[in-house]
């Protein structure tokens, strides 16, 4: 039997209550063991505007929010006007016909106009349309009413029996309306018998931090990174994590540095604008050789940009963050569950190499939602703190004084935690000698400066072998190799499946996660065999393409780029591959959905 692949969208204005039905649907899906991918297109507005939540579910892993919609719930006329013309035959559109008029639906689209006045005559307020529509949708996909009844009962329990009764009654009316008036979808939502979980990328990053042993988290609120702060704040007391909201991002990174130097694993998250303010601090962390992890959840820039829209536009900012050369690690997780796994791994690296680590997420990952098998959420991660004197009580004997920045082959000198007897030293953002004494002012010495600079920078050499090299996904011998980085992994894979199934084009994928240091040799050895290399990225200038060329000399055959604020949909990449195979050098898809 063919697998179910169901997409439901809910659209309306901010404040119309889209999140709750979305959450209920997501929970119903994952509790049946179905996979989920959800993306919420929204605007920087608290009330009004247009919010469009897409939820897609299947027995198979869901790689992106997809190309098509089976069901649209339009909560206002604006949603109807924006999306009805995109609905394909076989799909259904639910709306309150008392207030919303459909215009221009394609033949074969089932228009499910229900009357709130008739179905819920005694209930006041507009939110009731959400409950009716949700119940009707569940009927259309063959979900038993009892499941919704239980969820509503739990949700409204604390408001009293009357409220429970009213909501369940309204839902029942919607469910019965669908049963008697509507044609059900040709699917019955399966139940695999196994339960999955689901989370947002920001939750995954925060939980990864908790697993890694983060004891200090600080941030300044900034979309789309605030979800990390919210999770951390909610769990701070349970998990013994100090969470601080700081006056600005300059304060954030420096506070994290202070906590990290004193011995905590310290993390912070922001978006591009806040990251810009942090850059001098990141250089300071590297220079004082203090490990911190900073997450940049990219949004469409520059400046305030488009605060609620996605982009992969900060790669160069991360690579060039701050003045001068300094060792740093930059990683872009490729899926939402990968966000969880990346954080502990990065902490072990930055602790070992005493340098800052930067995670490049983006709005698509951080505010997107994904199902995850609970067994994948392994909190029993290995925690490696590197060489830290004073952390475990015992201190090694001092032979002629402690040299915080001792020059050695690895470039990593044991650090001593403040409070440890006998190891008093100064860490400085001025360049310094092995003992921490400044060589920037009175004692300037070019030879020492050179030696210290080389000591710091050579730490990078030992990092690369510890990072997983990117692996080719798909058939070895393909017509096209699609190269992406970070969050585009899923959508590129789905495009590859579509290319094979619908266009007869064999493509494979090389997705890059660890960006600095870069596995240049491994990438070259893969891409020299590629018949056509196309780089896919969510920015204007091809930041990764330029970086790849500078590191490896590889010049891609074609580029698929998108910088309208919305993420790629699979067909955008399919169209791009076809255009490039037909001779185009660069393809920029036009986003069809006005969100």
């Amino acid at each position, binding site marked *: 039997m063919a697998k179910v692949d169901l997409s439901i969208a809910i659209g309306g204005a901010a404040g119309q209550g889209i999140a709750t039905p979305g959450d209920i649907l997501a929970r119903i899906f*994952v*509790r049946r063991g179905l996979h989920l991918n959800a993306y919420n297109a929204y605007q920087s507005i608290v009330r009004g505007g247009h919010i469009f939540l897409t939820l897609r579910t299947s027995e198979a892993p869901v790689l992106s929010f997809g190309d098509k919609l089976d069901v649209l719930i339009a909560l206002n006329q604006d949603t109807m006007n924006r999306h009805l013309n995109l609905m394909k035959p076989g799909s259904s559109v639910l709306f309150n016909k008392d207030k919303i008029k459909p215009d221009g639906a394609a033949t074969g689209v089932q228009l499910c106009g229900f009357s709130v006045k008739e179905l819920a005559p005694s209930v006041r307020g507009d939110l009731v349309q959400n409950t009716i529509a949700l119940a009707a949708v569940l009927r259309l996909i063959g979900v038993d009413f009892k499941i919704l009844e239980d969820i509503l009962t739990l949700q409204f329990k604390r408001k009293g029996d009357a409220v429970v009764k009213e909501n369940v009654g309204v839902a029942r009316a919607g469910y019965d309306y669908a049963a008697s008036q509507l044609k059900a979808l040709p699917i019955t939502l399966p139940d695999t018998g196994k339960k999955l979980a689901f*989370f947002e990328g920001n*939750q995954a990053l925060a*939980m990864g931090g908790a*697993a*890694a*042993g983060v*004891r*200090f988290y*600080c941030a300044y609120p900034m979309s789309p990174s605030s979800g990390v702060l919210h999770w951390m704040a909610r769990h*701070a*007391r*349970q*998990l*013994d994590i*100090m969470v*601080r909201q*700081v006056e600005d991002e*300059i*304060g954030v990174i*420096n*506070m994290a*540095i*202070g*906590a*990290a*130097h*004193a*011995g*905590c*694993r*310290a993390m912070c998250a922001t978006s591009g604008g806040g990251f810009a303010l942090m850059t*001098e601090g990141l250089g*300071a962390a590297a220079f*004082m050789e203090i490990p911190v992890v900073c997450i940049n959840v990219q949004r469409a820039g520059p400046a305030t940009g488009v605060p609620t829209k996605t982009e992969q536009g900060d790669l160069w900012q991360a690579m060039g963050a701050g003045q001068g050369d300094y060792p740093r690690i930059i990683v872009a997780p490729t899926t939402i569950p990968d966000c969880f796994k990346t954080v502990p791994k990065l902490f072990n690296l930055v602790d070992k190499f005493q340098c800052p680590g930067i995670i490049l997420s983006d709005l698509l990952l951080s505010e997107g939602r994904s199902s*995850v098998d609970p067994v994948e*959420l392994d*909190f*029993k991660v290995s*925690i490696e*703190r590197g060489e830290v004197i004073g*952390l*475990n*009580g015992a201190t090694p004997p001092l032979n002629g004084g402690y040299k915080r920045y001792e020059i050695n082959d690895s470039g990593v000198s044991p650090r001593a935690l*403040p*409070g*440890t*007897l006998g190891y*008093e*030293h*100064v860490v*400085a*953002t*001025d360049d310094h000698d092995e003992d*921490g*004494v*400044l060589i920037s*002012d*009175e004692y300037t010495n070019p030879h020492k400066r050179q030696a210290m600079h080389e000591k710091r920078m050579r730490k990078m050499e030992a990092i690369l072998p510890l990072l997983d090299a990117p692996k080719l996904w798909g058939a070895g011998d393909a017509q096209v190799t699609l190269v992406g980085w970070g969050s585009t992994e899923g959508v590129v894979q789905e495009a590859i499946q579509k290319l094979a199934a619908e266009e007869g084009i064999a493509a494979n994928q090389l997705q890059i996660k660890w960006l600095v240091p870069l596995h240049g040799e491994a990438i070259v050895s893969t891409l020299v065999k590629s018949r056509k290399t196309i780089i896919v990225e969510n920015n204007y200038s091809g930041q990764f393409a330029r970086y790849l060329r500078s590191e490896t000399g590889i010049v891609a055959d074609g580029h698929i780029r998108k910088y309208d604020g919305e993420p790629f949909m699979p067909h955008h990449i399919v169209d791009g591959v076809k255009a490039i195979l037909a001779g185009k050098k660069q393809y920029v898809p036009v986003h069809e959905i006005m969100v």
Partner: protein
Amino acid sequence: MSLTTGEIETKSSVPPRTKLPLTIKDFKGKAEPDWCPGCGDFGVLTAIKQALVELGVPPHQAMVISGIGCSSNLPGYISTYGMHTLHGRALSVATGAQMANHELKIIVTGGDGDGYGIGGNHFVHSMRRNVDLTYIVMNNQIYGLTTGQLSPTSAKGMKTKSTPAGSVENPINPIPLAIAAGATYVARGYTGQVKHLVELIKGGIQHRGFALIDAFSPCVTFNLENTHDFFKQRTFKLEDKKHDPTDFAAAMKYGYEWDDEIAIGLFWKRDDLPALDQLEPVLDEGGPLARRRLGIAPDVAQSLIRELM
């Protein structure tokens, strides 16, 4: 609580094994100060060392954190733990360090440009948070290290390299600002009176909360107006006026006095407000955060996962 990984056996604090009693030599730094001969900052360095000796704080239990500027070189000249951070950011770093290890005695040092200028935002917010640290600002009313430009505390009309015709801006007055922003110990010293300064610093270190000590520290090279002579003629001690540091109105009145008579001493002190670390439930028990075991217990991990199902 059982632990999954990363088990680290730690003691909540290392008992001091330093030879007692401490002497000022125990705090001698690795480098000699490179300040100009006659710089007021020498007085602050001496006063901090003396205060630590008199309070019996051993070198490893103190951390001196600075920003950038002539005076911010101070951590290199004293043997404690030290951080010489970015320009204007010392208070942020210090707040993080204090939260991570609230058993350390944290002293932040810097200049007026560093603290009241580029670090002004952190200055205000650190005070309202009442972070338990002692902040000593070596106030010379000029940018010295950059060779003599206007500072936030330079007097109106002052001629500097960046204001050759005289400044038209009003200066910051750190004393009323600190009182208004929520600092719970606000004092002013003068490096020409080191003994007095030692007492103010001792009081600041012993105070549980944010202590500001603005210290007149004349720049002998670039500020030829606010000189030792200038301060010697004008300063008087608040103690001599029987000032009550719990009297808000009097503290503000003395804080605003400038022209002919300039007060030094303790303007403002209140002990009824807990410091930030005392308000943090995470620090209620278990010792410094920095020394706690890492890892999530399996039952806690399960509860976190259940939230997602």
